[in-house]
């Protein structure tokens, strides 16, 4: 094999920084925050590179070896998921399977096994696709983001992170360090569905996660929804949630609920689906979630 080894001639040296600690990574960003293209599992970034080779970055910040980003930790106030934990690790994690089952479910339908072995939760969040498979779940579970920069650490609710189509609140010199999930209240029901052309390797036409709590007497206490592929960003259903609060589920009108859903969603037509289909499916899934979440 050695005699076959050839060196590719390169005009410009590509710089590849692979820090081992968060401090080292932040030091690099402090020196020159705009210089680096950040990469973790590479399952989105490497596709971009393939599509637009003329925009090949000259300097890379590879986060895949940063120690502080690799672990899932149960803490008193919730679950801390390091930004570089892979979807395969989340799918297999026993506590995630039992206490945050929607996350185990969404991780298991993101791409397929070879993608899940490399793709990270932080990458899925920061890539900021409106179709991101894990985004609805993080919205429904009220995730908080731990964001580090050379100036320190800040926390923000995930529902404030996506500020426009593929835009996030992350500054150039910031890194998403971890995603925190609070413990869901006792007795909540949850529901996750992804609708695509096939079970594996599909980009969602609609993705939905719902976390519902009722009072045991048929009345909804809180209903929190996250959706993908029905707006420019992953989004929630504030009007619907507000409408459902305290409402009697037996007398709930599907037509009235649909009207509220229309106020929250603005799907578009694209190569994967039409706006009408997305709105129809989202409406049916919300109804299904309310009645069949487990």
């Amino acid at each position, binding site marked *: 094999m050695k005699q076959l080894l050839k060196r590719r001639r390169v005009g410009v040296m590509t710089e590849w920084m692979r820090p081992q600690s968060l401090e080292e990574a932040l030091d690099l960003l402090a020196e020159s925050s705009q210089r680096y293209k950040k990469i973790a599992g590479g399952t989105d970034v*490497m596709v971009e590179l393939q599509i637009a080779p003329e925009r090949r970055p000259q300097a890379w910040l590879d986060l895949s070896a940063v120690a502080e980003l690799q672990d899932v930790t149960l803490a008193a106030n919730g679950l801390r998921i390091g930004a570089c934990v892979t979807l395969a690790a989340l799918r297999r994690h026993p506590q995630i399977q039992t206490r945050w089952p929607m996350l185990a479910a969404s991780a298991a339908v993101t791409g397929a096994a070879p993608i899940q072995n490399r793709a990270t939760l932080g990458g899925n969040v920061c890539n900021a696709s409106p179709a991101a498979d894990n985004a609805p779940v993080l919205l429904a579970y009220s995730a908080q983001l731990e964001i580090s920069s050379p100036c320190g650490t800040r926390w923000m609710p995930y529902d404030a992170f996506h500020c426009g189509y593929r835009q996030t609140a992350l500054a150039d010199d910031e890194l998403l360090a971890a995603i925190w999930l609070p413990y869901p209240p006792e007795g909540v029901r949850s529901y996750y569905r992804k609708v695509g052309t096939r079970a594996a390797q599909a980009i969602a036409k609609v993705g939905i996660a719902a976390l519902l709590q009722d009072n045991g007497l048929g009345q909804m206490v809180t209903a929190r929804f996250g959706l993908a592929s029905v707006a420019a960003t992953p989004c929630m259903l504030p009007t619907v949630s507000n409408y459902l609060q305290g409402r009697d589920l037996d007398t709930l009108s599907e037509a009235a609920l649909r009207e509220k859903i229309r106020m929250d969603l603005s799907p578009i037509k694209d190569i994967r689906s039409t706006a009408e289909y997305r709105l129809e499916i989202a409406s049916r899934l919300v109804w299904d979630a309310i009645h069949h979440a487990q």
Partner: protein
Amino acid sequence: MPITMRINDQSVTTAVAPDRRLLDFLREDLGLKGSKEGCGEGECGACAVLVNGQLVNSCLVPLGQMQRAEITTIEGLVENSALSQAFIACGAAQCGICTPGMMLAATALLAEHPQPTLDEIRWGLSGNLCRCTGYGRIYEAVAQAAKGGSDD
């Protein structure tokens, strides 16, 4: 910075660009042409290899992340294994483009689930597309290889 890895149990050191795709390095620099490029964007699995025992799409892996990695390509799998015999016996290969990726996906699956159910087989191979066989014969081959393995 030179990158040193083990590919099919041989040590390889290279100084090629760190953003070079593992797939291109394997095929063009090392002449290991069993891994195929289908889609180039992680959807078809034709380029699948094992990195540290895990199934990955080599078209999405930059060499910069392969320092000290253990990589297995189709050329590194045992010849005449229960798996390859089962592929032949079941007619699980037609045009052959997807076969290397399928065999590596099956290898990863059988390492995790030595006696997989049909659902586990379908799930384990779900990142690999085949346009000839309709998948049935491939699933059958994996199930047969698992049975063969238990007789050893």
